[in-house]
């Protein structure tokens, strides 16, 4: 197991290098001049533009720029944006917001998704089961952008239950965006749990558990739920990585100063260093949590062994 984890961790290095180069190349390929964009409507003198382009290596070919970036990276420097602020500081400022948002979303996803899925799976074809099926289909089919604006309008503006933007009210400000962010995965968790449970209820070993005269509770919890949750837990685990990277829309709509909104703004102003730094971090989260899931899988299912 230890060797397996070490090998997987080593493998993340080439993946991260490749990902950062791709992102770097894409930012490089964006049309427009980031230096001119920096000035907004005010024209910047050609001398200043030339000076700045030189300082940020913008006149060099792509591979030279990337090499300069990598040199900085190995000395722990993620570079600076065009205003001279270190990218590392930006990440330190914005990441906690995204982590809080992702945690709130995961809690919603796990608690509501699991409970709904378990109840629907145990009472298949009941009213509640049909309710879960219809509502999850609805949620999955609405784009998150629409859902975010709709939630903002209904719960924030009309009903006034939640703040519509910002983080002024502490954790409470994260509830509505967290729910919006979780909605798609929540629906998926509910359906996955339901299907997995319904399938396991028909398994031979559940019949054996009944034949052993175990109490119904034990049959359901120990011999059905435990087995059914293996795919669900692994899905939720992998989803942490996705949520940490996928909050771009939610954070922008709800104006939360997290890495998602930061990356959105940086793409618009062509802040190459910021985009590369943050997106590479997102890729790392994704790889890391997938590794955690693979390890967890072996813990949950004794038939899986990595040797």
């Amino acid at each position, binding site marked *: 197991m230890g060797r397996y984890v070490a090998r997987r961790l080593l493998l993340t290095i080439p993946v991260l290098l490749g990902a950062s180069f791709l992102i770097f190349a894409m930012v490089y390929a964006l049309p427009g001049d980031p230096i001119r964009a920096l000035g907004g409507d005010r024209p910047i003198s050609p001398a200043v533009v030339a000076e700045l382009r030189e300082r940020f290596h913008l006149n060099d070919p792509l591979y030279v720029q990337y090499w300069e970036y990598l040199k900085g990276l190995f000395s722990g420097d993620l570079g600076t944006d065009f205003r001279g602020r270190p990218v590392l500081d930006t990440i330190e400022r914005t990441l906690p917001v995204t982590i809080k948002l992702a945690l709130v979303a995961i809690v919603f996803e796990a608690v509501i998704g699991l409970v709904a899925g378990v109840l629907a799976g145990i009472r298949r074809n009941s009213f509640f089961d049909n309710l879960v099926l219809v509502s999850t289909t609805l949620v999955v089919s609405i784009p998150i952008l629409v859902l975010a604006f709709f939630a903002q309008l209904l719960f924030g503006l009309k009903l006034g239950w939640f703040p519509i933007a910002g983080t002024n009210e502490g954790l409470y400000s994260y509830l509505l965006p967290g729910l919006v962010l979780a909605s798609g995965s929540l629906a998926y968790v509910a359906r996955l749990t339901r299907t997995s449970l319904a399938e396991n209820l028909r398994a*031979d070993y559940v019949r054996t558990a009944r*034949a052993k005269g175990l109490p119904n509770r034990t049959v359901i919890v120990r*011999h059905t739920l435990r087995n059914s949750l293996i795919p669900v837990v692994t899905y939720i685990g992998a989803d942490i990585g996705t949520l940490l990277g996928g909050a771009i829309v939610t954070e922008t709509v709800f104006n939360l100063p997290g890495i998602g909104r930061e990356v959105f703004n940086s793409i618009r102003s062509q802040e190459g260093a910021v985009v590369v730094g943050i997106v590479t971090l997102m890729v790392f989260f994704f790889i890391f949590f997938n590794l955690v899931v693979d390890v967890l899988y072996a813990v*949950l299912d*004794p038939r899986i062994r990595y040797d």
Partner: protein
Amino acid sequence: MTNLDLTKPTAELAAQGTPLLEVDDLRVEFRTRSGVVNAVNGISYSLGAGETLAILGESGSGKSVSAQAIMGILETPPAVISGGGIWFQGRNVLEMSAEDQRTIRGPGISMIFQDALSSLNPVYSVGFQIGEMFRAHRGLSKKAARAKAVELMDRVRIPAAARRVDDYPHQFSGGMRQRVMIAMAIALDPRILIADEPTTALDVTVQAQVMDLLKDLQQETGMGLILITHDLGVVNEVADNVAVMYAGEIVERGTVDDVFGRPSHPYTEGLMSSVPQVEAKGGRLRPIAGQPPNLARIPSGCPFHPRCARRRLGAEAAPGRDCATDVPPLRLVVPGREAACHYSEEVLGVRAP
């Protein structure tokens, strides 16, 4: 709690003349969207202590369903026990509360299944799964239950039991897995053990070992054994009595020697001649023509008549004994032998009464 006395020695009960199990006119149907499937259509039998009853039949003849009805583990719905009774030590199981029924499963009646790999939970160690019997029914601690599990694994002759108790089902061979199932089933010294095709998934040498083990355990404990199988060889070796099922009914019943030696139902006769015999080496096997009936549309009259070589229809038939229209009841043909055929005497070669 049930007031069933599960502590009294089996021999004492036998002396009182109460059979361990009596099944009377049991009927099970599956109500599905596409119609009603009549899986078990009025079967009756009884089982005494130390006795081995083999229930023989093709797939879909209702043998497994009837066993699951006795265990109380049928999926309901779609299955419905639509008639009859199941008496365990003199009490009708079907009239008990679900909780009382549950306490019988394990110490009263226990069951082993065909495919031990899928019938054992893959995520728990075998020791845990055997020990569960003691934890659920006797309230033993986890540690004590594990110790009991080692004892049982020794008893079913699993080598190095103490070392293997924490292994998982997938780490055992097919034969060893079936032993784990048996250990689990006999954990609480059940009065009755139902073995549903216990050796079908195993290779021949292992089959013999498992059957020997079951026989030995039965001799030690005096439990009644219901052996569900389609393997005539297995029946011949271990069973005392045999009931042959066809289309959810018992069509012939008697001691194994009688039934196998001289069948009195054309279906049994057909089964016998479709099995290779050492004496008939070089001869051709004669399979039973046709297909097992669709249980949603069981043929009228004798359910076997469309496939029967001895059927008599219309003018050929004796009055009231037309195979296509008159249902043959299960009746005593000669002492100790029952068959559900209008013309059993003919099959048996004796004069009609």
